[in-house]
């Protein structure tokens, strides 16, 4: 169970904690003309030669001094001495105070002000009080940080008393303090810098949090502890197994056998991704590496379009801006990301690949916050603040700007690009929290990409001429969540929006606009101990407009060019309705066992059919030890409706059925510690009713492989994993044909990555990948089309029999954060392809298919970013 950390932090400047270290013991008596710094020497302004009966003044009344506010304001923190020349009268009062040297931050003035309040027993000679002059030193020490902690039960919001809190400084020294009755701890003697806060409370998950403390500041933190799941022994009859119930406080265990979650901090710090949220998914097992410029998610051998992307339960059409430049939801707006490579819950439907569910971050409730970031790709901002009465908002936006600096380069290269790739995206949310379990969030988010060029298609006129592509989408979304009781929870997501794609190249064009309205409602109810039911509806209604001028059949081997006779145009409007309902039961019939049978029914208006999807996930822990070995398995049926184009009366045909996939997964999980876990999965899935030649639904596919992942997660200092995927994905046009390798099949995918916090604001990470090259087909010279002026190719019956060389790449990333208390400045350097290996990304034939050349990929590429945060 994931520990939930909710902190409220406030930093208060402390002005009174300065140590007024009046070092009387080292005060120097100063005799006129004398240079010696001898303490309490009797001054003798004019004749001090007879010293036998002389006595130096002695401090009687101290006057402490504060660390100057002016120095605190400019964060000037250092230990400093101010030496004053004091003139004392015969009563021992200070009549004059002159600093030995001036300074910039008010130390001397503070010392003089304080010194005027000093009272001495006057100096004397032969028992007679006399006036004197002495040196007097004030020693300023920066005020120490103060840490005020409060530990609360996340569920009840009650303070946790008598809980041990261990504070470990950067130098390794540790102290343990116990919370008082209010769950509070206050420590005033800490050294500035990084401190790790570890909280160990009985019956609660451990909490660890790192904080950076600064001089003269009080840092107040509220940590909310999540109760550790525990076995509840119900009243049972003799002979029955003792049911086990997972205490549902915080997140319940996943319903799926394979769920890979990434936190926002992980996503932001994975090397080689520029800190991008969704590009981090490409480092997870089961995901093929896309070539540069292809923002694809090829999951367990499925097509890119087979994977469904959700934002808080609402499907969105895109995951990446053009060419995978970055994802459409920035990391700053993301709380976490859940990735299901297969056998996902009945909650999700209409997809045969994987599922990516992005959770937007709730606006922060404590105070105004802001962030500005600039790197070589884009500029972005985030602003968020409480609005009172439990309301808070967050606004974020981003605009790419590489078109500004890349334009002149491409102009010089005569690339014919009139509008460089540029994108916007924005997210706005307001959230009302009635309690930790009851909230409403209203959001609007979307993205807008455009690119236009005059393209040269070589000898292929079809792909020459004007080229442009534009994609836009937005959603207005409401998410309501209420945990009515420990047994009952409801969540509803409603959304409306627009998706537009416009594409044109040469003689071809496509404009499609859809207006999706979606509603998802799920109710979770504990039926009885050990049985919990999740039931929901998942509706999607999408009116659409489509206008297309495309080849009636895209060219396979032998039809590389598309003359006019094979072009067709279609224009029309329509609406598609997808109505889904599901139920899923979480059963824990006996100790260590978790069975999740599910059933989903999906009606699709274009197929006029209802697809029924039974699914089951099973997990069996071999003991009650949290570190126990757990076996798991899953089997399910998945459907994916045909696309708008596939059912178009010109480019597709009516009567198509949903594509179908049967997926199986078997494996195990083995935790080794709180942070370290090993997982292994073998999967097999079939793909049926794939659309071939736009009209036939005879295509078949199959994909199988093994995924293993050794992951270190949850520690504040380090995260990382080693993953390896061995897989095979194949396709054929019908059951009579031989299997061909899928175009994005990658046999071996090895990823090793890690990121370690070095302390003092430094973090260093690296990622190494070794991945099989993509397959390709070796074509030969066919007939020359002397009407259009280009060669056709020949191809073997079995496609993709060749394979490009192994891809391997090392990326490193360094982050540095400067904490100035009220704001932070951070910068990062992300170097991709550190040792400059030029991987083969494509094998391109020449104009008559008699030769081929390798197109190589990315060179070493450093990316620098800077960010300021309030």
């Amino acid at each position, binding site marked *: 169970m994931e520990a939930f950390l909710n902190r409220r932090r406030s930093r208060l400047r402390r002005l009174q904690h300065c140590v007024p270290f009046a070092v009387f013991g080292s005060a120097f008596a100063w005799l006129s003309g004398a240079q010696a710094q001898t303490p309490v020497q009797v001054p003798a302004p004019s004749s001090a030669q007879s010293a036998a009966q002389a006595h130096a003044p002695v401090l009687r009344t101290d006057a402490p001094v504060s660390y100057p506010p002016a120095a605190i304001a400019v964060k000037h923190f250092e230990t400093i001495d101010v030496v004053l020349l004091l003139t004392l009268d015969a009563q021992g009062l200070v009549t004059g105070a002159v600093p030995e040297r001036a300074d910039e931050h008010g130390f001397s003035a503070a010392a003089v002000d304080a010194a005027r309040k000093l009272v001495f027993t006057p100096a004397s000679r032969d028992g007679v009080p006399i006036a004197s002059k002495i040196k007097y030193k004030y020693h300023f020490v920066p005020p120490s940080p103060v840490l005020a902690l409060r530990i609360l039960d996340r569920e009840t919001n009650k303070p946790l008393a008598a809980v041990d809190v261990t504070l470990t400084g950067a130098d390794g020294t540790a102290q343990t303090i116990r919370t008082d009755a209010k769950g509070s701890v206050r420590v005033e003697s800490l050294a500035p810098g990084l401190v790790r806060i570890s909280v160990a409370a009985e019956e609660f998950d451990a909490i660890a949090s790192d904080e950076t403390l600064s001089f003269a500041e009080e840092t107040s933190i509220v940590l909310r502890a999540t109760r550790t799941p525990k076995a509840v022994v119900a009243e049972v009859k003799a002979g029955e197994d003792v049911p086990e119930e997972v205490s549902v406080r915080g997140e319940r265990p996943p319903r799926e056998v394979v769920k890979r979650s990434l936190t926002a901090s992980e996503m932001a710090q994975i090397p080689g991704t520029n800190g991008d949220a969704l590009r981090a998914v490409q480092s997870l097992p089961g995901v093929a590496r896309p070539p*540069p*410029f292809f923002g694809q998610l090829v999951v367990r051998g499925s097509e890119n379009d087979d994977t469904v992307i959700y934002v808080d339960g609402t499907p969105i059409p895109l995951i990446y801006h*053009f*060419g*995978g430049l970055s994802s459409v939801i920035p990391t700053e707006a993301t709380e976490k990301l859940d990735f299901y490579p297969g056998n996902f819950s009945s909650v999700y439907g209409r997809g045969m690949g994987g599922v990516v569910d992005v959770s937007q971050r709730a606006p922060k409730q404590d105070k105004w916050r802001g962030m500005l970031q600039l790197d070589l790709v884009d500029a972005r901002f985030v602003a968020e603040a409480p609005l009172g009465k439990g309301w808070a908002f967050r606004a974020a936006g981003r605009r790419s700007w*590489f078109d500004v600096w*890349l334009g002149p*380069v*491409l102009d010089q*290269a005569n690339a*014919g*690009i009139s509008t460089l*790739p540029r994108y916007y995206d924005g997210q706005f949310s307001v959230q009302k929290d009635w309690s930790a379990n009851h909230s409403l969030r209203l959001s609007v988010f979307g993205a807008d990409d455009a690119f236009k060029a*005059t393209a*040269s298609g070589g*000898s292929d*006129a*079809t792909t*020459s*001429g*004007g080229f442009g592509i534009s994609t836009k989408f937005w959603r207005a979304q409401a998410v309501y969540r209420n945990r009515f009781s420990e047994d009952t929870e409801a969540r509803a997501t409603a959304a409306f929006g627009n998706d537009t794609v416009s594409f044109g190249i*040469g*003689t071809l064009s496509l404009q499609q606009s859809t207006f999706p309205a979606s509603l998802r409602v799920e109710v979770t109810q504990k039926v009885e101990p050990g049985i919990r039911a999740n039931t929901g509806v998942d509706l999607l209604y999408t009116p659409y407009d489509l206008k297309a*001028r495309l080849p*009636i*059949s895209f060219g396979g081997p032998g039809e590389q060019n598309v*003359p*006019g*006779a094979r*072009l*067709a*145009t*279609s*224009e*029309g409007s329509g609406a598609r309705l997808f109505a889904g309902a599901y139920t899923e039961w979480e059963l824990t019939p006996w100790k260590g066992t978790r069975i999740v049978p599910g059933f989903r029914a999906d009606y699709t208006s274009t197929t006029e059919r209802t697809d029924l999807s039974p699914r089951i996930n099973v997990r069996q822990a071999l003991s009650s030890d949290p570190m126990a070995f757990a076996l798991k398995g899953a089997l399910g049926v998945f459907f994916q409706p045909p696309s708008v184009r596939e059912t178009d*009366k*010109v*480019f597709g045909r009516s009567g198509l059925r949903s594509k179908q996939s049967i997926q199986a997964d078997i494996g195990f999980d083995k935790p080794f510690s709180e942070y370290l876990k090993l997982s292994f999965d073998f999967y097999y899935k079939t793909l049926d009713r794939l659309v071939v030649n736009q009209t036939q639904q005879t295509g078949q596919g199959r994909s199988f492989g093994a995924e293993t992942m050794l992951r270190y997660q949850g520690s504040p200092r380090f995260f990382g994993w080693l993953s390896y995927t061995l897989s095979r994905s194949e396709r054929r046009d019908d059951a009579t044909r031989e299997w061909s390798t899928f175009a994005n099949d990658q046999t071996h995918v090895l990823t090793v990555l890690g990121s370690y916090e070095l302390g003092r604001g430094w973090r260093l990470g690296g990622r190494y990948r070794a991945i099989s090259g993509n397959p390709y087909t070796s074509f*030969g*010279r*066919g*007939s020359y*089309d*002397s*009407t*259009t*002026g280009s060669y*056709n*190719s*020949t*191809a*073997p019956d079995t496609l993709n029999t060749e394979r490009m060389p192994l891809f391997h790449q090392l990326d490193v990333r360094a982050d540095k954060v400067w904490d100035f208390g009220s704001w932070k400045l951070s910068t990062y350097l992300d170097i*991709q392809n550190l040792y400059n290996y030029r991987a083969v990304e494509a094998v391109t034939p020449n104009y*008559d298919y*008699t*030769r081929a*050349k390798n197109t190589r990929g*990315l*060179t070493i*590429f450093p990316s620098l970013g800077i960010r300021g945060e309030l």
Partner: protein
Amino acid sequence: MKHALFLTMLLLACADTEPPANQVSGVRILATSTDKPFAKPGESVTLNVLAVDGRATQAAPMRTYFLPVPCVNPERDEVDKCFATLATDYPVRTNLNARFVEGTTVTLALPNDIIDTHAPVRGGLPYGIAYGFVIACAGHIERIEYRSASAFTPPFGCFDEQGQLLSKDDYVFAHARILAYADLRNANPVLDVVTVNGKALDQSGFSLSRCFESDERNCTKSKVDAQIAASAQELDFANGPAGSGSNVRERVREQLWVSYFVTSGKMESDLSVIYDAQDGKLPKTENGLFVKEGAGAGAGTLYAVAHDNRGGVSWRQFPFTIQ
């Protein structure tokens, strides 16, 4: 940004070292025109081929041959579906030159039922399609064994006197499309003017200076351009006029482009689009021509072949000398 840089890299990499299609260094068929790009059922159509022998040394002269009958309405309009039938019509290990029509023109008759026998058309007017075949060969033609491993391989090869299959530089197998509609016609696009450095060319040709730069990107290029009258960009009725059975309400125009070929030197790009189907006349249609030191003979020929995307073709050619 890395992707943008990669795009830049790819764009810059367009100047690759592979000989481009515009460099004619062997036996080549550059284009085939028909007198009726859109014919009617039962009409006779005359094909005219532009074939060029760019070989530096010629062991045997290049000749062009047409197959005497067209292939009509192959499955899914795919030309390779004709190959199996062609293969069965001719014997193997036999000089077939005499079975074909030698020359640069041939007249083929279209069946009266060419439209009726075509599969139903989606998104456009009903049509029929016929393929004519032409072979340029510096030897003699034989049928080659049909190889099941590559059903897209043309069924004829070019052989020398010893019966050895000649290389790709000595032989081209080509096809030309003939479309048949009940009522539609399509005109071949006509090249009104071809200019080099702004000067209109005539049959006397032009002259070029050699480039002595080691990096050809630094060579000064002669600017080659072509002009086609705007009236040549016809409305593309064939792909979906209103009421034709398609659901189209908007009509688009043809795309017109010019393919360039040279027997000496090199063009910057294989083709220049003159009229885009969606954007109309493009503002930048120039192409570049240059001859590197030591490349080619002291003279050459520039071929400019105009195409529309509905099968219309015409060409002009101009000699040039290299200084």
